């Protein structure tokens, strides 16, 4: 037969009633409660411990063939699908980037960028001064007529065309109309 005292003890231990820690019963149940809590702490019932147990269980289930390997493969497969898609996307990006890089690397190698054909040719180079010197040197060798002007950041080279000069400029990959008597080369610094 349960005594009232027992019920109070149960309620105090289960914290169903407030413990004022004044009476002997209250003080001893409080100590006992702490002792039980301390003991239980050692059992490590934390969510992390439970999660670790679950991982071990899953490993064993796989090992014993109770969850088919396919179930894991399907997860892997989904992951792989995304991985392949991401790789392709990145690869494509890199190819595009490489293409642009090549284009820019041409500038670095003083390759010409044509923005106009005919009478006016715009050339964007890394070092306009060096490029001008190279062209002028060749024009001098060919005894061509030319004039050089500077307008802001642009060097404007106006050349009177004859056969030799025309051939030379075409060898420099400039498209020049056969009808033109002069050509204006605007040399700009690449940004």
């Amino acid at each position: 037969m349960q005594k009232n005292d027992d019920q109070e003890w149960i309620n105090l231990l289960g914290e169903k009633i407030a413990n004022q820690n004044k009476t002997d019963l209250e003080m001893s149940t409080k100590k006992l409660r702490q002792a039980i809590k301390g003991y239980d702490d050692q059992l490590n019932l934390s969510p992390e411990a439970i999660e670790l147990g679950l991982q071990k269980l899953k490993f064993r289930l796989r090992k014993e063939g109770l969850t088919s390997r396919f179930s894991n493969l399907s997860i892997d497969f989904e992951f792989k699908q995304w991985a392949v898609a991401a790789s392709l996307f990145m690869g494509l990006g890199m190819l595009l980037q490489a293409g642009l890089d090549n284009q820019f690397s041409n500038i670095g190698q003083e390759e010409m960028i044509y923005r106009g054909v005919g009478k006016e040719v715009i050339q964007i180079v890394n070092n306009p001064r060096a490029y001008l010197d190279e062209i002028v040197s060749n024009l001098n060798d060919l005894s061509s007529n030319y004039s050089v002007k500077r307008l802001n950041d642009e060097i404007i080279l106006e050349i009177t065309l004859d056969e030799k000069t025309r051939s030379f400029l075409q060898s420099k990959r400039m498209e020049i109309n056969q009808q033109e008597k002069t050509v204006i080369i605007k040399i700009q610094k690449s940004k």
Partner: protein
Amino acid sequence: MNDEIEDNFCIELVKAGNKKRDQGISILYRKYAKDLRRFFSYKCGNISDADDLVQEVFIKVVRSCETYRGDSTLKSWLWQIARNSFTDYVRHKKINATDQAIRPTSDSDEDGWEFLENKEPSLQVNYHETKDTIQDCFSRGYSNFAKSDPDRAYALSLLVNGYDSKKIAGFLNRTEGATREYLSQCRKKIEEFLLPCKELLATE
């Protein structure tokens, strides 16, 4: 979702196999492993055996999920598996103990008693050796009580961890009235272990 409905949903997932089985068993494990771990830890007196037994219960759930017809709740079924697993564990321990007792394991253990000395470390509270406080006394008292009477200590642990008498009754497989009576008996039993502590408490 209602507990029972969720459990039934999970067992259907477990039955379905593959990825669904993985999901179902994960939900069930996260829901019940903590209580099972507490149960086995008290019963076995050590955590590593408790972990093995928890795992064993869920392996059995997977293996025998097809036999579950829903005549009882999944929770009852699972706890029945847990109790049976513990019975098997005790039986296995006894057989092993007998085996080792009759077959000496080494020259230095001619009588075969060494295994009794080298038992797995049981749950023990770390006390401050220099200063034995009243709390240390209560902790030691409870630890000894848990070793001597793991079932009752387990019931007190459930009580302290916020379970009401109805839920405790479910865990102990008793009626609610019988559980209240059982808890009263627990008090009497543990008082014997706490007697010196109460004297210390009175002199404080």
